[in-house]
């Protein structure tokens, strides 16, 4: 289990980014980490993986502080950053050099994922590939490690249209009860069918952290008052398709979770949302 407890952190001593952020993640879910530009999503992920140290509080992976960076802990985590660094190696050489760090790495899966993204038999050095091609190789590698904690920062950025669909298919087959996947993204439309738990970081706080079914139990996503009922309205948006609303779900009506509406509703109702999803 992954846990952040009252983490404090700032790049500048006069301006703290996190003044006590807490976050708990359960295995078996694919978390979507959402937040505005500069909210600190990437920083939070770096603290979680031991790449940055909290100035106060704890980042724990299975009870052990992430900053210890023990060998067993590092072999259980893969963090695919948005800005990917690739060494001057061919795909085969890259695998030979880095796969041994991950005891559950599967060569077959790596080959299969590369083939699905049409990157198998790619000659040449990875650092000479296009941005999207590099990304595909790194995604295939990250998934083939079969780590219990997989973190991806904007994985669909730079992928072409067919690759996004292939990425979703691969992710759908990858998720299982033992694995925790965190995807930090602004491209919610690319991924919203895969995300089944949502974490929203705003102003140095986690204002919402809940599985999708808990969210739709408490909130109603309504178009044109079709499911009209009493209850507080948290957010309204007028579109050519109708009036979209996020409301309190007092009658426990099932509705389709819309991540963009949820995000806008959450940042406008921080206090209520923090209490509601505690």
């Amino acid at each position, binding site marked *: 289990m992954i846990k952040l407890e009252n983490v404090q952190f700032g790049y500048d001593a006069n301006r703290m980014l996190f003044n006590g952020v807490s976050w708990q993640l359960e295995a*078996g879910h694919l978390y979507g980490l959402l937040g505005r530009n500069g909210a600190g999503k990437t920083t939070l992920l770096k603290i979680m993986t031991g790449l940055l140290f909290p100035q106060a509080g704890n980042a724990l992976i299975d009870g052990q502080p992430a900053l210890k960076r023990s060998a067993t802990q590092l072999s259980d985590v893969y963090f695919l950053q948005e800005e990917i660094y690739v060494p001057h190696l061919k795909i085969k050489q890259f695998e030979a050099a880095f796969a041994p760090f991950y005891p559950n790495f599967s060569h077959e899966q790596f080959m299969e994922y590369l083939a699905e993204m049409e990157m198998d038999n790619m000659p040449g050095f990875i650092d000479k590939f296009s941005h999207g091609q590099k990304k595909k190789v790194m995604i295939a590698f990250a998934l083939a490690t079969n780590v219990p904690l997989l973190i991806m920062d904007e994985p669909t950025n730079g992928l072409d249209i067919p690759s996004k669909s292939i990425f979703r298919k691969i992710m*759908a087959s990858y998720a299982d009860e033992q694995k925790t996947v965190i995807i930090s993204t602004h491209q919610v439309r690319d991924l919203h069918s895969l995300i089944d738990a949502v974490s929203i970081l705003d102003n140095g706080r986690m204002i919402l952290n809940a599985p999708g079914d808990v969210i739709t139990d408490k909130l109603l996503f309504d178009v044109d008052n079709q499911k009209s009922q009493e209850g507080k309205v948290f957010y309204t948006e007028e579109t050519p398709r109708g009036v979209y609303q996020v409301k309190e779900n007092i009658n426990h009506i099932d509705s389709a979770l819309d991540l963009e509406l949820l995000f806008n509703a959450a940042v406008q109702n921080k206090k209520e949302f923090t209490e509601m999803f505690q």
Partner: protein
Amino acid sequence: MIMDFKSTQTIYRQIVNWVFEQILSGSWKPGERAKSVRELAVAFEVNPNTVMRSYEYLQNQDIISNKRGIGYFINEDATEKILAIRKKEFLEEEVPEFLKNMRLLGIDFNEIVNSD
């Protein structure tokens, strides 16, 4: 296979309806094995937990059964069960909407019968 993610219907309900269609059209036959959760998740590009929720609903409605270690099977009377659910939904949801539109547009029943 593409889900309409902008629909107001939840993804899990859309998958349930898709399964209904497969059984009613005869492409999934009673007694046969249903596609696995993972197969459907990959085909629809959705989280396996979402398909799991659809299958739990179908199990609660006695449309499919889980045989441990083997997978899900379509029950012999699945078609009758689905028709009963569909009929109930039609009467409770679509008919009131239909009647509301009739009143709104000032259409009476004779007009409907004659337009056929």
